[in-house]
C-alpha cells in the first residue's frame, strides 16, 4: 500500500533512471516508500532499548556517536579554555615592559603549551568531535560505521591530552615552541623529558585523529541515506570527506617527524644534526608538510558549518553550491603546495620560494570564492537576526582580515620583514578565530536545540558575540602594529624604550574582554545543558527552531532517525515538509531493529544505493581499556619506565584483539527486511564491505608515513652526499625481493585458496602464516646486511636515515606478526569460515602492503645513490 510519491522518492527514482546504476539496485523500489498503515507495537521500544546508553560507571563503555561526540566536544572546549588561560597569563606578562610575572622558562612553556594545546587538543579534535556528533544525523545514518573506533579515538585523545596538559603543573612541559624545531629540541639543547612529552604525546594524539578520520571518510562514503548521491550530499559532508582525506595524507608527516626526532633524542641518530650528515631543515619540511594543510584541515569543516548555517539563516539555498564544493577540493589540494612559506627565511633557493609564494597566493582564490558565495547567499536571502547569524557574519569579517594579511605574508619580500614578529601572530589568530572559533560558537548556538531540545540564551548570546568580537580586534589588531614595529614572537619581555608598551597593554585588555565573552558563554552553556528533564542527551524532541533543511533536524535519539528516508535534495526537509512525520512514523528504511542488534544501512559510494545492513557493535569496555593502555605505553615510555611501558604495550595488543574479535560476526539471518519488503544481506566481504574501505585507508596512512621516511632519506642524500660513506650491500637485494614477492603472493592467494579448496580455511591460515614468516626473514636479512656492512645509526645521516626507515618498517612487520597470530587463533576457534570473511580481506591487504613497503626499503637505499656510497 503506498500513497502518491513524495518529492524525495519521486526525485530519487527519476534521477536513478537518468543515470546508470552503481550496484544494480532497482531504484523503483523506492516507490514503496513512505509505507502506509501503522507499525507493529513495541517496535520503537525495541529500537530504543537496543540503542540505550549504559548508565552509571558503565557509561565509560558507551560507544554511540551522540554520547561520544558530546564528550568529545566538551573535552575539546575544555582544552580551549585551559589554553586560553595560559594565553591570559602571557598577556599579563607582556602588558608592560620588563614585567616579572612569570620567569622566562615558564613563559617558554606557556607559549609552547598554548600553541600545542590549541592546535592539537582543541582545533582539530573540536572539528572532528562535531563531525562525530553531527555527521550521522546529517546523513540519516544510525551511527558512524565503527562506533568503537570513535570511542577509542575519544578516550585516547582525552587520556593522552590530559596527561600531556598536566605536564605544565610539574614544570615538565615542553618549551621549544609548538613546532619543536631542532636543534633547539635536540637532546643537546633540550635536556630532560619535556620535549619527549611533546613528541610522544602529540604522536599519540595524531593516531587518535587518524582513527577518527578513517571512520569519518567511510561514514560519508558508505552510510548516506538512500538517494543521497554525491551531488545531493550536504556541503558539510563534503567538507568532512575532504577533511578526512587531508588528515590521512598530512598527519603521517607529523607522525614520521616526531618518530625521527624521538629516534635522534633517544638513540643519538643524527637525522637533524648537520655536523653528522643530518639536516634541521628536513624537520621543517616534514613538519610543515603537515602543519600548513592542518590549517585547512581546521578551516574546511568550519567553513562548511558556515555554509550550512548560512543557508538556514538566509532561508535560501547556498549560492554556488557546486562552486563551494569545488573550492573546498581545490583548497585542499593547493594547501599541500604551500608548506615552505613558513620557511622563506631559512635560505631556500630563490626559485623554490617563488613557487611557494605563488601557491600561497593561489590558495586564497578558492577560499575567497567561498566567502563570496556566503555573502551572495546572505545578500539574496531573508536573513534571520539571531546569535548564530551574528557569529557567522562576525566570523566572516575576521576571517577575511586574516586571509588578506595571509596574502601579505605570502609575499617573500614582506615575509622577510614580518617573519617571526607579532604581525604573524595577529595574522594566524585572525584566520583561526574567524575561520574556526566563531563558526564553532555559531554552531553551538545553532545546533544546541538539536542536541538537547533547548536553546542557549539569545540575549546572553548577543553579549557573548559583542564581547568576543570586540575582544578579538582590541587584542589582535594592535599586534599587527607591534609586529610592524619589530616586536618578535616568543619573547617574555621587552625594553621600555621600544614603544611597544601601549599596543601590548591594549592587546592584554582585549584578551580579557574576549575571555569575558567566553566565560559568559560557558555560564550559559552550563545553565542550558545542566538542566534536568526535557529531551536532553539526544533523548527526544529535537526542535528545528531555525527551520533548517538538512536531515540532522530529524534526529530523535541515539539511533538518530526512527527510519532512514529516501533523499533527493540538498535541503530535504524544505523539499518535503511531510518527511519529518513520515520518518518519525517509521515509514522509510529500517523502521525497526531487523536483526535485534544495533544496525545501519550501508549504501554505495556514489549513488547511495542500499547494499546491505551493517550489524554494529554495541557498548564495550575494550575501546576505553585499549586507549588507557595505549596512553600508558606512550607516557611510560616518555618517563623511561620501560618494563611498565612494555606491560602496557602487551595489554594494549590484547585489548585491541579482544575488541575486534567479536566484530566479524556471521549471523543466521542471511538477509533481512529493511522496510517495505525490501531484502538486503547482513554480511558482505571485499570492496562492497565498509570494513574493506577502512583497511584500504589504513594502508594509505601507512604508505604515507613510509613515503615520508623515503623523503627523509632522499632529502639527506641530496643535502649531504658526503656522509654516504658505507657501500650499499646489494647482495641482499635478490633474496630479499624473492622473499617479499613470496610474502605478497601468499597473502594474495589466501582468499582463492579459501574459496576453492575443500579445507580452504586452514590453507588460507597457513598461507597467511607463511606470508608473515617471509616478511620477517626479509626484514632480518635487510637489517643484517646493513649491520654487517658496517653501517651504524649513530654514526652518520646515512645510518640514521636507513635504520629509521627500517625501524618503521619493523613496526609494520610487528603488526603483521600479531595479525597472523590473531588470524591463526580465529581459525583454530572456527571463526575464519569460507568462502570469504572480512578479517581475512582486511589482513591480506595489510600483508601485501607490508611486502611492498619492504621492497621499497630494500631497493631505495641500495639504488640511490647509484654509486653505492
Amino acid at each position: 500500500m503506498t500513497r502518491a510519491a513524495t518529492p524525495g522518492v519521486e526525485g530519487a527514482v527519476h534521477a536513478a533512471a537518468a543515470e546508470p546504476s552503481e550496484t544494480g539496485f532497482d531504484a523503483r523500489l523506492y516507490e514503496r516508500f513512505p509505507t502506509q498503515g501503522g507499525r507493529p507495537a513495541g517496535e520503537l521500544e525495541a529500537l530504543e532499548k537496543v540503542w540505550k546508553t549504559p548508565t552509571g560507571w558503565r557509561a565509560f563503555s558507551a560507544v554511540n556517536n551522540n554520547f561520544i561526540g558530546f564528550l568529545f566536544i566538551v573535552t575539546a572546549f575544555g582544552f580551549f579554555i585551559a589554553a586560553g588561560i595560559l594565553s591570559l597569563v602571557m598577556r599579563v606578562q607582556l602588558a608592560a615592559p620588563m614585567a616579572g610575572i612569570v620567569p622566562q622558562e615558564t613563559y617558554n612553556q606557556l607559549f609552547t603549551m598554548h600553541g600545542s594545546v590549541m592546535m592539537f587538543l582543541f582545533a582539530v579534535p573540536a572539528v572532528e568531535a562535531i563531525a562525530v556528533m553531527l555527521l550521522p544525523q546529517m546523513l540519516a545514518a544510525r551511527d558512524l560505521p565503527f562506533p568503537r573506533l570513535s570511542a577509542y579515538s575519544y578516550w585516547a585523545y582525552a587520556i593522552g591530552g590530559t596527561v600531556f596538559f598536566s605536564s605544565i603543573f610539574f614544570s615538565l612541559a615542553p618549551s621549544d615552541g609548538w613546532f619543536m624545531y631542532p636543534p633547539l629540541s635536540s637532546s643537546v639543547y633540550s635536556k630532560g623529558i619535556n620535549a619527549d612529552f611533546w613528541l610522544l604525546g602529540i604522536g599519540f594524539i595524531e593516531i587518535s585523529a587518524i582513527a577518527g578520520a578513517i571512520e569519518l571518510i567511510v561514514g560519508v562514503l558508505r552510510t548516506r541515506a538512500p538517494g543521497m548521491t554525491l551531488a545531493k550530499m550536504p556541503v558539510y559532508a563534503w567538507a568532512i570527506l575532504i577533511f578526512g582525506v587531508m588528515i590521512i595524507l598530512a598527519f603521517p608527516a607529523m607522525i614520521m617527524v616526531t618518530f625521527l626526532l624521538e629516534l635522534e633524542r633517544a638513540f643519538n641518530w643524527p637525522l637533524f644534526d648537520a655536523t653528522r650528515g643530518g639536516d634541521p631543515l628536513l624537520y621543517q619540511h616534514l613538519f610543515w608538510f603537515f602543519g600548513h594543510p592542518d590549517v585547512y584541515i581546521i578551516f574546511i569543516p568550519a567553513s562548511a558549518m558556515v555554509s550550512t548555517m548560512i543557508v538556514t539563516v538566509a532561508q535560501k539555498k547556498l549560492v554556488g553550491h557546486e562552486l563551494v564544493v569545488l573550492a573546498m577540493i581545490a583548497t585542499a589540494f593547493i594547501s599541500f603546495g604551500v608548506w615552505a612559506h613558513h620557511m622563506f627565511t631559512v635560505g631556500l633557493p630563490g626559485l623554490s620560494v617563488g613557487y611557494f609564494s605563488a601557491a600561497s597566493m593561489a590558495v586564497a582564490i578558492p577560499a575567497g570564492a567561498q566567502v563570496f558565495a556566503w555573502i551572495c547567499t546572505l545578500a539574496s536571502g531573508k536573513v534571520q537576526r539571531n546569535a548564530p547569524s551574528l557569529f557567522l557574519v562576525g566570523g566572516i569579517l575576521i576571517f577575511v582580515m586574516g586571509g588578506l594579511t595571509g596574502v601579505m605574508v605570502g609575499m617573500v619580500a614582506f615575509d622577510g620583514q614580518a617573519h617571526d614578529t607579532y604581525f604573524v601572530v595577529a595574522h594566524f589568530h585572525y584566520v583561526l578565530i574567524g575561520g574556526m572559533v566563531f563558526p564553532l560558537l555559531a554552531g553551538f548556538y545553532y545546533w544546541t536545540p538539536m542536541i538537547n531540545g533547548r536553546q542557549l540564551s539569545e540575549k546572553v548570546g548577543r553579549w557573548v558575540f559583542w564581547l568576543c568580537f570586540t575582544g578579538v580586534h582590541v587584542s589582535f589588531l594592535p599586534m599587527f602594529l607591534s609586529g610592524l614595529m619589530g616586536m618578535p614572537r616568543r619573547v617574555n619581555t621587552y625594553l621600555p624604550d621600544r614603544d611597544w608598551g601601549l599596543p601590548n597593554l591594549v592587546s592584554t585588555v582585549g584578551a580579557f574582554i574576549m575571555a569575558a565573552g567566553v566565560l559568559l558563554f560557558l555560564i550559559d552553556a552550563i545553565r542550558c545543558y545542566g538542566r534536568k528533564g526535557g529531551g536532553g542527551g539526544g533523548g527526544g524532541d529535537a526542535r528545528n527552531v531555525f527551520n533548517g533543511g538538512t536531515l540532522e533536524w530529524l534526529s530523535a535519539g541515539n539511533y538518530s532517525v526512527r527510519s532512514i528516508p529516501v533523499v533527493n535534495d540538498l535541503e530535504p526537509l524544505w523539499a518535503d515538509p511531510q518527511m519529518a512525520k513520515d520518518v518519525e512514523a517509521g515509514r522509510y528504511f529500517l523502521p525497526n531493529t531487523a536483526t535485534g542488534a544495533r544496525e545501519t544501512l550501508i549504501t554505495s559510494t556514489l549513488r547511495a544505493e542500499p547494499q546491505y545492513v551493517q550489524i554494529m557493535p554495541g557498548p564495550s569496555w575494550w575501546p576505553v581499556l585499549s586507549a588507557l593502555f595505549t596512553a600508558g605505553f606512550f607516557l611510560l615510555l616518555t618517563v623511561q619506565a620501560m618494563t611498565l611501558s612494555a606491560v602496557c604495550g602487551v595489554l594494549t595488543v590484547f585489548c585491541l584483539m579482544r575488541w575486534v574479535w567479536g566484530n566479524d560476526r556471521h549471523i543466521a539471518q542471511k538477509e533481512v527486511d529493511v522496510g517495505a519488503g525490501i531484502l538486503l544481506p547482513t554480511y558482505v566481504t571485499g570492496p562492497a564491505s565498509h570494513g574493506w574501505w577502512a583497511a584500504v585507508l589504513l594502508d594509505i596512512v601507512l604508505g604515507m608515513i613510509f613515503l615520508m621516511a623515503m623523503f627523509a632519506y632522499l632529502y639527506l642524500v641530496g643535502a649531504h652526499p658526503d656522509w654516504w660513506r658505507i657501500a650499499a650491500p646489494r647482495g641482499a637485494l635478490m633474496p630479499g625481493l624473492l622473499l617479499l614477492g613470496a610474502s605478497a603472493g601468499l597473502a594474495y592467494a589466501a582468499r582463492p585458496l579459501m574459496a576453492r579448496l575443500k579445507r580452504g580455511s586452514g590453507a588460507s591460515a597457513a598461507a597467511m602464516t607463511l606470508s608473515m614468516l617471509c616478511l620477517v626473514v626479509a626484514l632480518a636479512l635487510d637489517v643484517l646486511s646493513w649491520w654487517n656492512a658496517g653501517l651504524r645509526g649513530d654514526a652518520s645521516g646515512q645510518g640514521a636515515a636507513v635504520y629509521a626507515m627500517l625501524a618503521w618498517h619493523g613496526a609494520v612487520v610487528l603488526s603483521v606478526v600479531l595479525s597472523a597470530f590473531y588470524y591463526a587463533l580465529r581459525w583454530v576457534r572456527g571463526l575464519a569460515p569460507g568462502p570469504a570473511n572480512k578479517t581475512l580481506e582486511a589482513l591480506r591487504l595489510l600483508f601485501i602492503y607490508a611486502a611492498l613497503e619492504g621492497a621499497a626499503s630494500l631497493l631505495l637505499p641500495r639504488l640511490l645513490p647509484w654509486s653505492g656510497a
Partner: protein
Amino acid sequence: MKALRLPGWRPIILAFTIWFVHFMVCWAAAEIWPHQWAANAVAWVATAIALLALGVHFVQVNARHAEGQLPGWQHRFALGAIAIASAAVVFSALPAIVFLP
C-alpha cells in the same frame, strides 16, 4: 541497469593531481639544481607537459560526457577542476619565468 564504468570523482582528482605533480617536479628541480638554468628548464618542460595533460584530460572528459558516462554535476565539477588546475599550473610556473639564474 548498466553498471558505471569509471568512478565519477576520478576526473576531478586527476586534474588537481596533475597540478600537484607539476608543482612537486618544479620544486624538486629548484632544490636539486639551485640557482641553475636546469631548474628553470625543468619547470618550463614540466609546465608544457602539465598543460598538455590537462588539455588531453579536457578532451577526454568531454568525450565521456558525450557518451553519457559523465553525467550532470560530475561533468561540471571535472571542467571546473581542470580550469582551476590549469590556472594553478600557469601561476605556479611564473617564478620560473621571472626568476632567471
